[in-house]
Each structure stands twice: as C-alpha cells, then as structure tokens.
C-alpha cells in the first residue's frame, strides 16, 4: 500500500461530466478519530459491537445462508445483529462470496455510503483467492484489493453457525478496537481507487460516494 498521504487535495471526480461534477461532493473522507479518553472509546466500542446493523445486499451466493441466520432457528438478532435495508443505517457489510465486476461497482457505492466506522466481513472462499471462479473473466479474485476486509469466513457456503461465530468474532475485534478497515480505506483511498478503477472500465460515479 502507498503511504498515508492526507495532504492531497480534493477528489478529482474525473469519471463525471463537468455538469455532474457540481452535483457531487469532492471532499475527501476523514478517518475515524478515537475518543481521547480510553475508557470512553472502550465504552463506545462496546456499544458499537452490540448493535451491528448489516446491510441487506446479497452480493453473491453467500446471501442464501443469511436467511437462516436471520430467522428463527439461528436468530442473530439476539446477538445484536440485524439487517437493514439501506447503507445509511448499516455498519456491517457481509460480502456474500464472489463479486462480479458489475456488482463490485455497487459494493463500492454502498460501502462508501455506509456510516463509519464500518466493518466488512467476507464470506466464503471467493473473496479470498477467487474460489470457484478463479479463472472467470468477470469476478474479482482478491477482494481486499478493492475494499478493506476485517474478517474472512471460509467455506462454500459458510454455514449459519459459522456466520454467527464470525459475528461474535467481529464483535470481539471491535471491542478490542482492532477493526480498522474503515480507516485503512480512507487513509489509502488513492491506492484503493486505483485498484478499483483498473477493473471498473465505466467509472461514471464520484470518487467517493458520500
């Protein structure tokens, strides 16, 4: 990754036409700053960890096991984990397996619209090293080149039990203050953007979807 360079100017938004450019913000996102008092930060993290809102976006086949996870038998609600329909309300993004290039574009937009600090959990094998679709012309092989991932759960499919275990693991990570994917993304925004733009040919959206 490139060095953390915050002295860069506003975002170029050069995928947009000049008229459109006025409609979108070109401000750079700012990393999350922990509270100066450690106890407060710890408390806030504890709160965060116990109300995780997942974005309801089934990006791939992994989504099929999210249904049982959210319903009566496994009931993830009791662990403080529930789906939300819009990124504005969500803090966890479960990447459901493979991401096609077309979906990746939507993932980026959805991810950027989520409120920070936000966490990404990658399900299955495909985000790790391409999985089943390692030779496909339309799915990415290493998801963490485009979006920072906090946790990987292997399996094809990962079962609801292990998804649940993953949620608990994520909670633990958040409580310990180690879930820093959000900040990694912002601090290395240019690196991520370069990776994203290399494979998304028709980049017709702002560089950061506020």
């Amino acid at each position, binding site marked *: 990754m490139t060095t953390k360079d915050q002295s860069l100017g506003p975002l170029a938004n050069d995928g947009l036409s000049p008229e459109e450019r006025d409609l979108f913000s070109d401000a750079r996102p700012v990393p999350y700053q922990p509270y100066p008092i450690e106890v407060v930060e710890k408390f806030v993290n504890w709160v965060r960890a116990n109300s995780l809102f997942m974005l309801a976006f089934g990006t791939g086949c992994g989504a099929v096991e999210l249904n049982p996870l959210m319903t009566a038998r496994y009931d993830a609600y009791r662990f403080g984990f529930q789906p939300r329909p819009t990124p504005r309300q969500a803090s966890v993004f479960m990447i459901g397996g493979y991401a096609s*290039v*077309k979906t990746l*574009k939507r993932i980026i937009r959805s991810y950027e619209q989520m409120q920070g600090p936000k966490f990404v959990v990658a399900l299955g094998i495909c985000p*790790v*090293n*391409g999985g089943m679709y*390692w*030779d*496909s*012309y*339309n*799915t*990415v*092989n*290493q998801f963490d*080149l485009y979006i920072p991932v906090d946790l990987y759960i292997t399996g094809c499919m990962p079962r609801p039990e292990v998804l649940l275990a993953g949620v608990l693991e994520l909670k633990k990570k958040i409580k310990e203050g180690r879930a820093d994917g959000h900040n990694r993304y912002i601090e290395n925004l240019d690196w991520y953007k370069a990776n994203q733009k*290399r*494979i*998304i*040919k*028709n980049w017709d959206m702002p560089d950061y979807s506020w």
Partner: protein
Amino acid sequence: MSNDPKSIIEELSDHYQISEIKEQKADLLLLKIPKEDAVQFIRELRDGQNYTHLAFMTVIDYIESGIFTLTYMLHNYAAHHNIAVHVDIDREQTEMESIHELWVHAATYQRELREMYGIRFPGSPRLDDDFCLEGWDEIPPMRREFDTVSYSRERFFDREGRITTDPREHMKQIMYPIHTDND
C-alpha cells in the same frame, strides 16, 4: 395434421432445404436449415406445426471452421417433442435475422448473444444495451479465442505464495538426478 415429427420434416422438406437430420432420442430431433430460410422455417414450425414454445436459442462456436451454429430449441407441447433448428452463420460477418416478433423472450437471448458472441440481430429491442457485462472492451468473452484464464490472471491477480511441485519431477531430482540428463 400429423404429429409424427418425421412426417412433418418430410412434408417441410418440399419447401425447405433441410439437412443433417438426426434423431438424438425419441423426443429430440436435430436438423439444419440455410440461414436465409431459417426464420420462415421456424415460423412455419410455430404456426403450422404447433412448435409453439421456444425453450432457448443459443450458439455454438466452431472456430476451426469459422462458423457460428445457432440453435433454436422449439417444443411442441401436444406431441412432447423438441426440434433443434441449427443455422450456420459466418463467424466474422455475424448477423442473423431477429425472431423477437415470434417470441418476446427471444429478444433477451439475442441481447445475450450480441454481448457474449458479438452476433447482431437487427431490429431486436435493447440489443446493444449491456446485458451481463458492464463496460466490456475486449472481444466478446464467450468466443472461443477469448482466454478467460489469462484475462483473469492479468486483471484480478491470484494471491501470491503458492508453489506446487510435480511428483514425478521431484522424485527425479532427488532420486535419480543424473539418469536422464542426456539424449
């Protein structure tokens, strides 16, 4: 009207140049028809012979002979019989008459073939809209000359750190290194 597929074909043979007839199994007949007559022939099957259901249409890439073979899979619900109509078209000047007026969903198939193989179907609705791909600027991916592995490796990168060893080579190097280094 006879329901027997063979007599149907015999009857139609008077008007159309049907070739390469093959009965794959009791309920599937394969045949080939020249490009010019194809749509008329399919219309005849649909309207005259009760082959009212288009199961799918697709194409087979015979890169070595430079042709695309279109397949229209028609089904007769009454006779429970399928006919696969093959049509050869040129692989470079790929154009085919559209059948979206016969079946609405054919337009979707034609969109897909346009995107995946680069076959043009003039008049077909939304033909040039993106279907599955977005911003694709290579040769159409389903054509056989497109190499998906190297494309994936160049574009999406395999994760590093994997090495494999061939058992035969490995044993050779350790167990009998000097026994093969010549002629």
